[in-house]
């Protein structure tokens, strides 16, 4: 059985699906990604589907499941590169992929994740600052 490779680029895992996946290959990718997220501690996953000429309900559901699993493991997923004809077909099929974030290409997807991370980091620091300030006030 073929396997979809997962690349680590900085803090992000990048998956570019280049083959017409049989169902088992899609399920294997789901498992492999969960393991790599935990092993690397990456906070972002980018899945490039620009080479796919169709996304049926099985692949659509697999993408949604991957996004849910990653979120539980503290990683955000962005699906990038969907072709216009695929988007039209998916919506007509009845699958609008709620809960999946998308971007037009890999670069924009990576930028989206980086921005998210920065915003999350800024929030953390704000919380820390607040704690430090209140601690300082408490001191006699």
């Amino acid at each position: 059985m073929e396997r979809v490779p997962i690349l680590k680029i900085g803090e992000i895992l990048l998956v570019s699906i280049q083959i017409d996946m049989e169902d088992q290959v899609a399920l294997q990718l789901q498992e492999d990604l969960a393991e790599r997220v935990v092993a690397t501690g990456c906070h972002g996953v980018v899945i490039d589907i620009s080479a796919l000429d169709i996304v049926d309900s099985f692949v659509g559901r697999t993408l949604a499941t991957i996004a849910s699993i990653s979120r539980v493991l503290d990683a955000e997923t962005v699906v990038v590169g969907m072709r216009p004809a695929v988007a039209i077909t998916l919506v007509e099929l009845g699958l609008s992929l709620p809960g999946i974030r998308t971007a037009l290409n890999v670069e924009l997807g990576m930028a989206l994740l980086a921005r998210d991370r920065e915003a999350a980091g800024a929030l953390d620091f704000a919380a820390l600052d607040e704690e430090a300030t209140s601690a300082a006030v408490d001191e006699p």
Partner: protein
Amino acid sequence: MSDGAERIEIGTDQDVVRVRQLVRTVAVAVKLSLVDQTKLVTAASELARNTLVYGGGGSVEVDRVDNGRRQGIRIVFADRGPGIADLDLALTDGYTTGNGLGLGLSGARRLVDEFAIDTAVGRGTTVTVTKWCR
């Protein structure tokens, strides 16, 4: 009218991939638009998976058709599985007896121009779909 149907036996996941590839090839040959190719291949993928998962395997036949005005593709998915007891329910969005999303049959129907289903409990199910060039 036809210039020879092509047939694929469905027994494994890989056969579903072969159906997608065959339908894509024929769709390009009859010059369906890119969006219509995508819709038809997606519908074929859903229906071939149903043949495998619910029908326990079967066959798919892909044929070029011509109604005198337009060219098109007709695909017949046949299995000798358990059949569908309640067809209206099976065609409802979100209904499934398996663990899918329940969009295969109802979604595939929306993606093609003509959709016919012939099923009997204990005898199997045959789904015939047609997509015409615009």
